[in-house]
């Protein structure tokens, strides 16, 4: 067995375990931290498939941005020591059945489907290629989605500020 | 310009014009003008139609025109009329014309009232002129929806209940219709909703067995087919005068018309095969409606139940599946339309004076309101089938046609239906006796205002219609007969 395969299995196991912990942990801050590990594992896999830029973005935005954001919001809204109440068992069972069923169906499809790679020659995901593609407006260029995402981010930023900002006292009755 | 498009355009424009004026005077002037134009152009249409037929134009439908509307599904705005449609349009024009005059004194939200009323009429006209099943259905719905508002807002008594019940039951019928229409459309698989085109298709009998009942009951609900008639008494008794007139006079006819031109026309084998089931239902409805009328005390209930009986006769005639009886059924639609409109108009006028519709609380109106009473008697006599008035022509054509059937079952059913004429006489005379005759019930009756000019216009136009058909029925009967050819011949051949 190749080393890379072993590494993959290890990383994959870590990701799955921490994902499970993230959705089951009863301490909310811990859940956030487990999420961080799962995301970091993902970044690791990106490295393994040679998408270094994506891996970096994953680490910066997800691990560095979103998780921190989540942790801050937890700190703002919850007591860290407080244990969340356990969801009722009926709900857990039903949801587990649903999840397992979904998994089973998906796995059935995945294992039974024969994937045939397309033999294409193309570009490597080097930084310069990514940059050219991202801002290219010729064939295969992504400038339009890039710009759209920019606007979206701007809008989200404005929106977040508007929503989260404290109402002025005169409006607050 | 095609006269048929004008028939849809004029009411639409009238309704639009009403939107821009405000005073009651202006509103009703516009409504009356629009509907008078409509009446005149219907007469022109009738004249032109007869002219065309006389000059030897034997096409199935005349004045056809087609506009592509939604090509990918084959929906076209196809219009065209045959003799039956012309007759029904004529009826509609008379009834809506008189309906406007009968609602001359609507004071509450009069603008909206007239708009709804005329939109309803537009739907009816559209239904009769269109040849495309989809468009037909569209107009059918257009006619049903304003009914809800008209009863719910301007009605009396438990009006919300009645409006809801009526609309829901008719919508239930519509639901069956949609299924039936789509069934026909997809089975034919020729990418068109045009009735004439569809009628040339041979539908497999298994499919017909499924969709014929759907279409027949779907239209039967609005034609007051037993046991789907119960919206009729509640709806009519709560509806304002003009709405009752239009509803019983015209809207219920959409049912019979649809049964003939859609259900029986498109699915003749199933009609042949299954007519007996519905024949039993309609025979029941004829006699049952009449018997249930005898004990009613509310004038509108009386008329509603008698409508059940009379409209039962319409479907009964159609189900005999021969030309004579179908001819009679169409005649009966027209005759009943005029008659029942007259009744409802008169009931409204009497109610506006006595403020009750319970016949046991009234009496002796003949002395104080001679004009209206005489009109009522004429309507009653037409209803019980007096020769010289329209009811006789229609009923006798149905009975004679039905009795020519070779099957003993059909003849027995005919005898059952015929016996309703006695029951009809009983309830008509009961009403006339209690309501109009006898001593004047109360002192204040003497202060009743006499019939006003618009009331006279309304009743007299209807009575003229009744008399014309009753005295000289041959032209009308021939006109309908010619148009029945394609429909009924198909039944016989197969």
């Amino acid at each position: 067995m190749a080393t890379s395969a072993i590494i993959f299995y290890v990383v994959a196991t870590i990701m799955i375990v921490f994902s499970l912990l993230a959705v089951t942990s009863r301490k909310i801050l811990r859940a956030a931290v487990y999420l961080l590990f799962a995301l970091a594992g993902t970044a690791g896999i990106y490295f393994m498939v040679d998408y270094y830029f994506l891996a970096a973005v994953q680490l910066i935005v997800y691990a560095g941005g979103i998780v921190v954001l989540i942790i801050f919001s937890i700190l703002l809204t919850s007591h860290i020591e407080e244990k969340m109440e356990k969801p009722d068992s009926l709900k857990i069972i039903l949801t587990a059945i649903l999840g397992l069923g979904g998994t089973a169906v998906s796995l059935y499809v995945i294992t039974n489907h024969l994937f045939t790679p397309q033999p294409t020659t193309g570009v490597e995901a080097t930084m310069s290629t990514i940059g050219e593609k991202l801002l290219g407006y010729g064939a295969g260029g992504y400038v339009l989605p890039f710009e759209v995402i920019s606007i979206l981010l701007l809008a989200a930023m404005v929106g977040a500020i508007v929503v989260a900002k404290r109402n002025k006292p005169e409006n607050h009755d | 310009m095609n006269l048929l498009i004008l028939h849809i355009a004029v009411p639409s424009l009238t309704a639009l014009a009403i939107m821009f004026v405000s005073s009651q005077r202006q509103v009703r002037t516009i409504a009356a003008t629009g509907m008078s134009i409509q009446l005149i152009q219907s007469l022109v249409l009738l004249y032109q139609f007869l002219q065309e037929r006389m000059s030897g134009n034997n096409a199935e439908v005349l004045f056809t025109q087609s506009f592509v509307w939604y090509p990918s599904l084959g929906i076209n705005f196809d219009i065209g009329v045959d003799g039956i449609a012309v007759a029904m349009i004529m009826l509609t024009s008379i009834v809506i014309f008189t309906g406007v005059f009968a609602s001359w004194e609507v004071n509450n939200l009069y603008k909206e009232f007239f708009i709804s009323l005329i939109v309803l009429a537009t739907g009816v006209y559209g239904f009769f002129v269109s040849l495309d099943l989809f468009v037909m259905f569209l107009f059918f719905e257009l006619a049903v929806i304003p009914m809800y508002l008209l009863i719910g807002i301007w009605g009396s008594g438990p009006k919300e209940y009645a409006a809801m019940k009526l609309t829901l039951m008719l919508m239930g019928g519509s639901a069956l219709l949609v299924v039936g229409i789509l069934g026909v459309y997809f089975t034919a698989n020729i990418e068109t909703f045009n009735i004439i085109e569809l009628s040339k298709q041979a539908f497999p009998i298994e499919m017909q067995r499924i969709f014929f009942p759907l279409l027949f009951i779907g239209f039967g609900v609005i034609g007051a087919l037993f046991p789907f008639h119960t919206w009729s008494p509640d709806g009519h008794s709560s509806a304002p005068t003009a709405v009752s007139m239009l509803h019983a006079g015209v809207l219920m006819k959409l049912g019979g018309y649809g049964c003939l031109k859609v259900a029986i026309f498109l699915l003749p084998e199933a009609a042949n095969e299954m007519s007996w089931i519905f024949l039993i239902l309609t025979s029941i409805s004829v006699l049952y409606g009449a018997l249930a009328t005898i004990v009613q005390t509310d004038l509108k209930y009386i008329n509603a139940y008698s409508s059940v009986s009379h409209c039962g006769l319409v479907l009964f005639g159609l189900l005999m599946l021969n030309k004579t009886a179908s001819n009679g059924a169409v005649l009966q639609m027209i005759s009943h339309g005029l008659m029942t409109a007259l009744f409802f108009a008169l009931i409204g006028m009497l109610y506006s004076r006595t403020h009750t519709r319970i016949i046991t609380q009234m009496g002796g109106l003949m002395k104080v309101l001679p004009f209206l009473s005489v009109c009522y008697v004429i309507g009653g006599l037409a209803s019980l089938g007096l020769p010289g008035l329209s009811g006789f022509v229609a009923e006798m054509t149905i009975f004679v046609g039905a009795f020519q059937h070779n099957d003993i079952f059909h003849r027995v059913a005919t005898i059952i239906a015929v016996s309703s004429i006695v029951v009809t006489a009983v309830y008509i005379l009961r009403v006339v006796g209690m309501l109009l005759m006898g001593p004047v019930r109360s002192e204040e009756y003497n202060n009743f205002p006499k019939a006003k000019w618009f009331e006279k216009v309304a009743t007299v136009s209807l009575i003229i219609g009744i008399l014309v058909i009753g005295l000289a029925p041959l032209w009308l009967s021939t006109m309908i007969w010619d148009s029945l050819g394609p429909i009924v011949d198909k039944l016989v051949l197969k």
Partner: protein
Amino acid sequence: MIESVPLNQVLIVTTLMFFIGVYGFLTRKNLITMLISVELMLNAVNLNFVFFDRYLFPGKLEGHFFSLFIIAIAAAEAAVAIAIFINLYRNIRSINVEDVNEMKN
């Protein structure tokens, strides 16, 4: 890794991750933990894109860019969501999903 681990096996990992996210989304009551579950699902989808790209269409970068954009959108989403949560907490002193029924009725 591409040569040594077949596509089917890597997809198993993403599937598991996705449905773990679903499970969390459906069982958790705290809105923030629900957000965490959503992030898990998004992450699983991202991985799928990357895998399909690398395994089936080597040399093309569509999957790569899709993932990139998804990460960006996820960031935006998280920002707005957390803003809403905080506002919500301010108003009803709770970020329990079952308590959020102000707009019902």
